[in-house]
């Protein structure tokens, strides 16, 4: 199954963070790529949402939708920046 981009996770990201996060810039902990979450790669369907770095494939972030809330983890993000253009 080919990947799709991080825009497909917009709804889950918004539910988790309480705001649109597709334009937020993340810094990949593996390759230092600085890019909006919208450009991350998303495979699936899966048991949860898993965002991967478009440049190196590193797992940036996971979200699991559970009754009553979302369980999130950001094992591959050194930084996440919601300023316009991610502070660039």
């Amino acid at each position, binding site marked *: 199954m080919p990947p799709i981009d991080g825009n497909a996770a917009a709804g889950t990201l918004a539910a988790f963070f309480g705001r649109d996060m597709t334009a937020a810039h993340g810094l990949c902990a593996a390759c230092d790529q600085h890019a909006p979450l919208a450009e991350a790669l998303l495979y699936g*369907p899966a*048991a949860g949402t898993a965002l991967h770095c478009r440049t190196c494939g590193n797992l940036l972030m*996971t979200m699991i939708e559970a009754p009553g809330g979302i369980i999130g983890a950001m094992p591959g993000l050194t930084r996440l920046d919601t300023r316009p253009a991610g502070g660039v």
Partner: protein
Amino acid sequence: MAVISRGFTGRGQTSNRLPPGQTLTTGFPVLTAGPTPHVSTADWNFTLLTETGTEHTWTWTELRDLPQDSPHTDIHCVTGWSKFDTDWQGVSLDILLAEVETNAQFAQAYCHGGYTTNLPLADLRGGQAWIAHTFDGAPLPAEHGGPARLLVPHLYFWKSAKWVQGIRLLEHDQPGFWERAGYHNYGDPWREQRYWND
């Protein structure tokens, strides 16, 4: 007016086999959190790595030369679907673990593509787990974890790791990919252990 209660007849055959919160499917949904690795059987091998660092490795040919099992089983995905009467072929972990000296209590499967999942070593013994290479009489397709996947059908199916490369035997439990992300550490479908701390 008399109140008439329904006679108790027990649960039907389907509900006896369907864990709580699950829905029966006849399909076989493909779930993956990352790219699908394509591993040729010529390059494939499987390793048991003990807690002392000893490695036992089987090539594809060596695995196929071992005694083969044909488990017929129901499977249950944490996302809510269950599939009855699936047919597999593979090698029981009992046969592979018999070659290994270990005092480990835990295991972590690791896979091509980087996926991991953990479970107590006891859950890999006693005819409960296989390295499965065949589904419904045909080689296991890559999208379902071929050439071979771990099959541990008494736990939610994320524990039945696709594209399995090896299993680390561990003194201490090490949560895997979805367990770290928030799914349950053990994942018993009959106790509906879906999420962390359920």
